[in-house]
């Protein structure tokens, strides 16, 4: 029996077209749907709608009752001829994440059916091998759960008083942290804008890294201002080191330099500040920021572990990148001298000889801890022990 839809007195200014559209979707192209209605002037808008949708319509009157014979046209199907299939939601499903994302998929959700002819979007990072990590979704979930509110997570009101010179040292270290976190924000942010949205789990990880760094910059700045100070100094050597991170165009190499070597080293620094900072606010800040940085390192390690397994030649490129960066920075001073001294003072907590000696010893311990950490991560990525030791030593003196 021929399908029939009765739109009763529903008008085309009240969504009647949708009832007809749904009924037509249930019949094949070329089949006929009978439409009836009781509203005033229902046939006129129906004819207009059919014309616009590419369906033929004929009106017949029998026994004083008007009905329309709507023949389903092929126009709506034509739109989907040559459409792109774009994978699937669950990245664990075979074929869900393509090896290469097509520029013509544009901004569509992964798995959507995309009409042919979308203007191509020039996302430079469109190869899975260049950006992916299987653990990205899990790391993103962990990052979401680990977000903290700087107003409530840190006790900004806690009472403490530091000697001026120690407070100045804390301010200098925080000044240095802001500068470094600016690099840690800008690097993933730049890649984020170049990443094809097909790799949405990686997109999400980078987006939260950016948010993490924005929060760190905020709390470091608030610590600078806590006792009415302005930021301390910023040097050519420090900034030259950070600029070399921003100049790296390859995602995997940038992850290696920033996350595995730089942020990994920063985790050591933050743990040091958590242990030795002279006031509770700085210690709290350092503890929370270290947690976030640990996740950034984890993504970099996961990504590189996977990339190195699939592309053994990448190891040579990573070695070259470390060496090139070392050569490039060999003429610069590296760590700001003010920062180095501030770390000693901060760990000393006072200016007498014994305290400074103790602070100095702690900073020496920090530097050794940083080098050991880098070496361990490099070994985990499959670098031979000698190479790992050598590369760890070539890392910038600016830490990040």
């Amino acid at each position: 029996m021929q399908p029939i839809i009765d739109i009763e007195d529903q008008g085309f200014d009240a969504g009647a077209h949708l009832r007809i559209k749904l009924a037509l979707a249930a019949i094949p192209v070329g089949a006929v749907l009978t439409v009836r209605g009781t509203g005033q002037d229902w046939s006129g808008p129906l004819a207009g709608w059919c014309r616009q949708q590419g369906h033929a319509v004929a009106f017949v009157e029998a026994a004083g009752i008007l009905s329309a014979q709507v023949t389903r046209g092929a126009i709506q199907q034509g739109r989907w001829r040559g459409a792109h299939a774009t994978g699937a939601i669950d990245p664990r499903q075979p074929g869900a994440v393509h090896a290469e994302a097509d520029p013509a998929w544009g901004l569509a959700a992964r798995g959507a059916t995309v009409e042919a002819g979308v203007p191509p979007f020039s996302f430079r990072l469109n190869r899975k091998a260049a950006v992916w990590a299987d653990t990205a979704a899990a790391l993103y979930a962990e990052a979401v759960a680990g977000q903290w509110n700087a107003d409530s997570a840190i006790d900004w009101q806690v009472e403490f008083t530091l000697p001026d010179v120690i407070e100045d040292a804390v301010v200098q270290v925080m000044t240095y942290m802001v500068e470094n976190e600016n690099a840690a924000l800008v690097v993933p942010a730049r890649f984020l804008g170049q990443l094809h949205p097909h790799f949405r789990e990686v997109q999400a990880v980078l987006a939260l890294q950016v948010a993490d760094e924005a929060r760190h910059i905020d709390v470091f700045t608030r610590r600078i201002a806590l006792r009415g100070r302005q930021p301390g100094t910023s040097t050519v050597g420090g900034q030259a080191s950070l600029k070399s991170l921003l100049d790296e165009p390859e995602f995997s190499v940038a992850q290696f330099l920033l996350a595995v070597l730089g942020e990994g080293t920063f985790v050591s620094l933050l743990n040091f500040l958590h242990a030795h900072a002279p006031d509770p606010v700085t210690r709290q800040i350092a503890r929370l920021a270290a947690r976030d940085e640990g996740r950034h390192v984890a993504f970099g390690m996961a990504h590189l572990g996977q990339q190195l397994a699939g592309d053994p030649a990448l190891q040579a490129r990573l070695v070259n990148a470390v060496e090139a960066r070392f050569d490039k920075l060999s003429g610069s001073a590296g760590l700001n001298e003010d920062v180095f001294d501030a770390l000693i003072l901060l760990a000393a907590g006072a200016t007498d000889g014994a305290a400074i000696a103790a602070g100095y010893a702690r900073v020496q311990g920090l530097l050794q801890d940083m080098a050991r950490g880098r070496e361990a991560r490099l070994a985990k990525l499959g670098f031979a022990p000698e190479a790992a030791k050598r590369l760890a030593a070539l890392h910038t003196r600016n830490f990040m």
Partner: protein
Amino acid sequence: MSNTLVMGAVAYAPKVVTIWEGFKTWFGERGLDFDFILYANYERQVEAQFSGAIHLAWNSPLAWVRAERIARARGLTVSAVAMRDSDQDLSSVLVVRTADGFADLAGLAGRRIGFGAIDSPQATLIPLDHLRQAGLVAGRDYTARRFDVLGGKHGDHIGGERDAAQALMAGEIDAAWMIDGNYQAFANEGVLPSGATRVLARSGLYDHCNFTVSPGAPAAPIAHFCALLFGMSWDDPAVRPLLELEGLRAWRPGRTSGYALLERAVDDEAFYDSEGKILAADYRY
């Protein structure tokens, strides 16, 4: 004009440039040497069809009527070679507020009725004619309020119809004319809330734009042009955006059977004379 087929089109909106640049590229890739000239209004475009400036024109129905009258007066011929599927069998509707309870057109005697631009076939000329046929003459039997946007564009800019629909909902007028597709569009936009309005009258069916060939235009490139148009497929993703911009699914051979209502309106409302001269005194373009 060398061997280039030159078409005129009216720049009623910025998208017109996109549309015809797209067509030009597409035609060029298929061996048709094609170019276009944009006019600010249909009057100047129709006049150019008789000065040798353009071989054909993408004309409004009113421009077609004028071109046909000028040609006939001069012993020449123009022809309509192609039109959009969406140009055929259109109608205009007279929309009123449901709450006002008008039973028929007679109820609008002495009331304010909204129209579109002075030169709009669908929102002014055919509607004026429809009411005249029902015994209602503007200025005598009702007050006509015109929502004039962009004179000379022959109502291609739908702003006038939207303004009229808004004025209807604001209570500034008692009825508003619009093309049937816009009634649906204004409902979708929420300009006409569901159930708040109804259609009191519907005009007869009429046709809209066509490609009008100028007198003496070379036959071969025109034939090539038409063959390419009719070969454009909605299924082709390279063509579909152009068709969507121009508002069609498929090109159809031109026909002139759908302009009778407008012909009568042009005469009765004294818009053009039988030789295509402009009579409407307050027409600015």
